[in-house]
C-alpha cells in the first residue's frame, strides 16, 4: 500500500500529465497507481479528472485553445483506459447521464466533441449520437437510456433553427427531461427562448452548468 505522500505524488503526476498533454506520463502514472495498490477511482477523480478540470479553466481563460484541449484529452483517455477496468463496482456510480449530438443539417462537431470530453472527464456517462442527427433521435435516445439531460449543438444560423424543434420532441415525450444547448450562434437568451433549460458559452463551462441543471431536474422528479 502506498504512503499518503506517494499517493499525493501520483495524483499530482496524473493531473500534470493531463495539463502538460503528456500521454506517456499519463500511462506511466496510471500503471504506477495500479502497481502500488492505489484506488483506481481515486486516481481517476483526483488525478486525471482534476487535471482536466484545470484544462477547462485554462481554456476558458484563453490560455489553452482547441489544439491543447484535444491533446490534454488524449492524455486523459490514455490514463482512463488503464484505470477504468479497475474501478470497483460500488464506485461506478455516474454523476449523471447525458445524450449529446449536433442537430440535423450540421456537421460541425468540434464543439460537441469538446463538451463530450468535459462531461466524461467529470464522471458523466455520455451517449454520443454524433453529428447531423435526425431531430427525433434525441428524444428516442433519451428514452432508451433514461438520461437526465439532452445536450444539443448547432454551429450554423440555419441549423440552429432546428434546436427548438428538437427540444419540443424531447419535452413532448417527457417534460421533466432537461435540455442544454450550445454552439457559436446560440446565446443564453436564444437558448431560453427555444425552451432550453441550460446553456454554456463554451466547453469549459459545461459541467458546472450541467450540475446546476441536473439538480433542478432531480427536484422536478
Amino acid at each position, binding site marked *: 500500500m502506498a504512503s499518503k505522500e506517494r499517493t499525493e505524488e501520483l495524483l499530482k503526476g496524473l493531473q500534470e500529465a493531463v495539463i502538460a498533454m503528456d500521454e506517456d506520463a499519463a500511462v506511466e502514472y496510471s500503471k504506477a497507481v495500479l502497481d502500488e495498490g492505489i484506488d483506481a477511482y481515486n486516481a481517476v477523480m483526483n488525478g486525471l479528472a482534476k487535471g482536466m478540470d484545470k484544462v477547462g479553466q485554462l481554456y476558458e481563460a484563453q490560455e489553452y*485553445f*482547441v*489544439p491543447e484541449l484535444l*491533446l490534454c484529452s488524449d492524455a486523459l483517455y490514455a490514463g482512463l483506459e488503464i484505470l477504468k477496468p479497475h474501478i470497483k463496482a460500488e464506485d461506478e456510480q455516474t454523476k449523471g447521464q447525458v445524450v449529446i449530438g449536433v442537430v*440535423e*443539417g450540421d456537421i460541425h462537431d468540434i464543439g460537441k466533441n469538446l463538451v463530450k470530453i468535459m462531461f466524461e472527464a467529470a464522471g458523466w456517462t455520455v451517449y454520443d449520437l454524433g453529428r447531423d442527427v435526425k431531430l427525433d433521435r434525441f428524444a428516442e435516445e433519451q428514452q432508451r437510456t433514461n438520461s437526465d439531460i439532452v445536450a444539443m449543438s448547432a454551429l450554423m*444560423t*440555419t441549423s440552429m433553427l432546428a434546436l427548438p424543434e428538437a427540444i419540443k420532441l424531447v419535452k413532448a415525450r417527457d417534460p421533466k427531461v432537461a435540455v442544454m444547448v450550445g454552439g457559436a450562434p446560440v*446565446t443564453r437568451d436564444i437558448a431560453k427562448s427555444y425552451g432550453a433549460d441550460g446553456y454554456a458559452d463554451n466547453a469549459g463551462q459545461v459541467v458546472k452548468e450541467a450540475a446546476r441543471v441536473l439538480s433542478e431536474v432531480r427536484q422536478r422528479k
Partner: protein
Amino acid sequence: MASLDRVNALLAGQKVDRVPLYHFVLGFCAKNVGYPIASMYNDPEKSYMAQLWTFEQYGIDGGPDFGYASYGGWEFGGDIKFPSGEWEQAPSHGSFAVQSEEDMNKLRLPDVKKDGMLPLAMEFSKLQDKHGTPISIVLGGNFTIAGNICPVEKVCRWMIKKPELVRQLLRSATDHILEVIGYWAETFGAERVIPNIWEPLASNQIISPKQFEEFVLPYLKESSEKILSMGVRHIYYHICGEQNLNLPYWAQVPMGAPGIVSVGHEVDLATVIKHFGDRCIIVGNVDPVVIQNGTPQEVYQLSKQAIEKGKQAPRGYMLMSGCEIPPMSPPYNVYMMTKAVNDFGWYD
C-alpha cells in the same frame, strides 16, 4: 451614384455619396427567387441571377459572388455535399482527402482548370465579366483550406505533435491559392480580379494567437505578396468569427491599395479601423443571428450603430452582415439594413 459606381469609387480611393451596402448573401437569394439553396453553389447561372435580382430588390451595391467556406476539400480530392435538407445552409464535407499521416504522401495540387468547383467558379466569373460586375474568386484562406483538406481536429493535434505536416498542408494550400488566382488573372487580367478569401478556421474559437503567428501568418503574407505582385489591386479578406487576438497579425498582411477587410460581429468596428483603416476599406458587421432571430428594430439599430462607427474609416466603409445573411432571415429584417443605409449612410 449608381450602385456599382459607389463600390468602384471606394476602390479607386475616391469619395462616395453614401455608405455602400455590400451583402454576403447566398441561400437567402435562392429562397427569394424560388431556387433550391444548392443552386447557389452548383449552378452558376441560377446563382448569378438570383443574386443580381435580389441585389436590385434590396439596393445592394456590390456584385454577386460564388463560393463557400468548405472550399478546398473537393478540389484536393475529398467529397462535398451540397445542401438539401431543411436545416442545411451551405456545402459541407463528405470525406477528406487526408485522413492520416500516410495520406500526406498522396497529396497533390488540384488542376485549377478541372478539379472540384473551379470549373463552376470560372463559369460564374465569365457571367460577372459579361454583366460588368466585379470579377471575384472566393477561396478559403491558407489555414481554412488546410483544415478542409484534412479534418481540423487532426490539423490541431498535428500543430503540436507534428508541425511539419501542418506546414506541408499549408504549403499546398498556399501554392493552390496562387495557382487559382494566376489562372483568373490570366483569363480576365490581374487588375480586374478581386480575390475573396475567407479564413474562419483560423479564428480564436479554434487556435491561439501564437499558433496564428507561427502557422498562419507566414503563409498568408507569402500568398498576399505574390498575389499583389501578379498585378491584383485589391484582396478582400473575410476575417470570420472571433479573431480579436489575431488582429495584430492580420494587420501585417498586405491586402492591396486599398485592401478590403470584413469582420464578424465579434470584432468591434472601431478596433478594425484602428488596425486596418489607414489602408483598407472596412466592411461589416451586423450580427447574422440578430438578422435571423431578432426584431426589425434590432437589425435597424445595429445597422445604425455599425454605420456610425464605420463612417470614421478613412479609406471608406461598407455596411454588411458579420457573415452570410442566414437563408431563413425574415425579408423585412434584411430590408432594415437597406433602410438604415439610406437613413444614416449619407456623407455630408
